[in-house]
């Protein structure tokens, strides 16, 4: 009985995580410019991977394998935002244009509201 409940919880975690991953991918395709695409990539991927790995950790129980899963989880959780930051800063500094409601704008540090 406990096995069945555990499996159901694990499957729920995996499915919700996959839904977030699909949403993030759709966001990367649908959003109009690089900066808003990065919102989809940075947030949805981090939460999707975390949820799926948490599901697998519950499935595995306490083990040496769990430790490796936790390490992957921590690593993705802490480095995902850093990678997104570095990409967006490179994009900002090399003058990639940004989409706003009024049209395409090139931002610089002096022109910020």
């Amino acid at each position, binding site marked *: 009985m406990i096995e069945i409940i555990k499996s159901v919880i694990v499957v729920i975690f995996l499915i919700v995580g996959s839904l977030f991953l699909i949403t993030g991918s759709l966001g990367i395709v649908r*959003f109009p410019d690089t900066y808003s695409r990065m919102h989809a990539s940075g947030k949805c991927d981090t939460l999707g991977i975390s949820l799926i790995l948490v599901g697998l950790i519950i499935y595995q129980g306490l083990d040496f394998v769990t430790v490796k899963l936790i390490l992957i989880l921590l690593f993705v959780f802490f480095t995902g935002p850093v990678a997104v930051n570095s990409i967006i800063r490179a994009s900002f500094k090399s003058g990639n244009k940004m989409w706003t409601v009024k049209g395409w704008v090139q931002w610089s540090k002096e022109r910020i509201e």
Partner: protein
Amino acid sequence: MKKSVFGFAISFIVLYLFWILNSGIFEPFYLALGVISTFTVSYLFHKIFVPIKEPKLLLRTAIRFLLYIPWLVYQIILANLDVAKRVLHPSMPIDPVVISFQSNLKSELSMTTLGNSITLTPGTITIDIDPDGTFYVHCLGREHAEPFLEDVPCEMASRVGYIFGEIER
């Protein structure tokens, strides 16, 4: 105990735990190999690995950081629901804007933490950080920009500053 010795000891213990958990073999040969490589790595890199040298300060920062994580996870879930709503909405209601604000943080560690937290919370991404603590943030909608412009320092900056003992609450 001297400061550098403390940093070395902490990094040695953490890295050796990492070695044992990753190998999972308890034969003397592999344990000795772990000691040698861990010693080398922590001797070379303990200054980067442990940025806070005071034992009491390190403990206090660790406890406050652990207490900060549940709030951060809650914010991440809110952020994802928000982005998912905007992606799946047929007309894509986004209104991007770039803002800058002063965070009153001083050390690089706290600014990195705040930058990562901003990236993970609803509708905002850190673009750049100036050395004096000015943050440049890209917001997906105008309502996401308001919490950062209301007061100096904003709520998240004061939370992060409280972790590292730079801003009192």
